[in-house]
């Protein structure tokens, strides 16, 4: 039962079709890669990769201790960072439940003349780690006991715990 030459030819044809389409799609995606990215990082914005005076999305971590809420309105100001560059963000509205300092977010809006990103939509980015609350609490307590200062449930801790527990 040797593989018939006709069949082999067909199989090669199918593989060639697949490879050809793959190359075409690959090149298209490569050419479009900047448009496929959902958001610009603060570094991209600092390097001028993000178009000015256009509605864009900016994404990064909310820097610890940077969130300031207005007392008389829903206005908030915070800093997003990719640990290289920072961007100040202004937003008026209700923040998603998962919004907190140390958490990744994606904000949509425009850069104003003073270099502040005025957002009209803020989305919380969730990472791939899941953890029961008791574990986080125990970890925070252990951390507070060893360092002397209580810390918030930041993403950094969660990532760390996963690495620690999976060891």
């Amino acid at each position, binding site marked *: 039962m040797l*593989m018939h030459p006709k069949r082999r030819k067909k199989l090669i044809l199918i593989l060639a079709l*697949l490879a050809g389409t793959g190359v075409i799609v690959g090149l298209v995606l490569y050419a479009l*890669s900047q448009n496929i*990215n959902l958001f*610009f990082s603060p570094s991209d914005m600092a390097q001028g990769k993000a178009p000015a005076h256009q509605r864009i999305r900016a994404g990064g971590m909310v820097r610890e201790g940077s969130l300031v809420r207005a007392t008389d309105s829903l206005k908030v100001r915070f800093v997003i960072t990719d640990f290289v560059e920072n961007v100040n963000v202004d937003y008026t509205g209700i923040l998603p*439940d998962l919004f907190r300092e140390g958490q990744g977010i994606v904000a949509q809006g425009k850069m104003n003349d003073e270099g502040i990103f005025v957002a009209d939509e803020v*989305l919380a980015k969730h990472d791939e*780690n*899941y953890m029961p609350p008791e574990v986080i609490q125990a970890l925070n307590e252990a951390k507070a006991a060893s360092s002397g200062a209580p810390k918030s449930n930041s993403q950094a801790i969660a990532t760390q715990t*996963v690495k620690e527990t999976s060891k």
Partner: protein
Amino acid sequence: MTESSWRMPRWFHQMGSPKWFYGFAGILQPWFAIAALGLLTWGAVWGLAFAPADYQQGNSFRIMYVHVPAAILSQSIFLGMAVAGAVGLVWKMKVAFMVARSCIAIGATFTAIALVTGAIWGKPTWGAYWVWDARLTSTLVLFFLYAGIMALNQAISERHIAGKATAILAIVGTINIPIIKYSVEWWNTLHQSSSFTLTAKPSMPADMYLPLLLTVLGSYCLFALVVLMRTRSQIVQSQSGASWLMQHRDITGA
């Protein structure tokens, strides 16, 4: 790749025989049914009722016990459909085209479930039902591919030609599968990276991970069961009147 190494095993050619496939699938079906029922029930009850809540999302994370299996299956079924189609094209096996045809609606259903559950989860977690990021968009494209393949398959009444056309579209469509899979790594997306991989340590404790593993395995068994059932019914339709079929105990009830 010398010619002698291109030998296909015996079972491969046996599977191409409608009679043999019908009987073999009939033996496998009850086992897949039991496995699917058991694994899905076990995984769902454990995941939805007993697994601990997430420290940030609370109980809303539990939708992943439906979302993740549906998303994994939507891609696996597409690959399976394309492979079956390719086998049909190369070896001219009618049964392979039937298997590919059986896959279409099942895959489309799983894709729809993944999209809908993702949207339901996205609203409380991200703050939006839908975002045009690479993962979500490529999955929507997958759904449209299934829809196109389904339409093409239905539009041609001659089964063999329909099978060939469907197979070519399915094979070309597989380009989308690596795009879906790696979209979260190649581009900035709102969708998080995979929590569930076979190559890396799970990013959640065993109490959360194991129910997910059970529902994923259960979904594969459910898919296998439905694909065998649908293929058998196509065999019955195409072979109606064949003497071997008339004597089969499934038909006569003996």
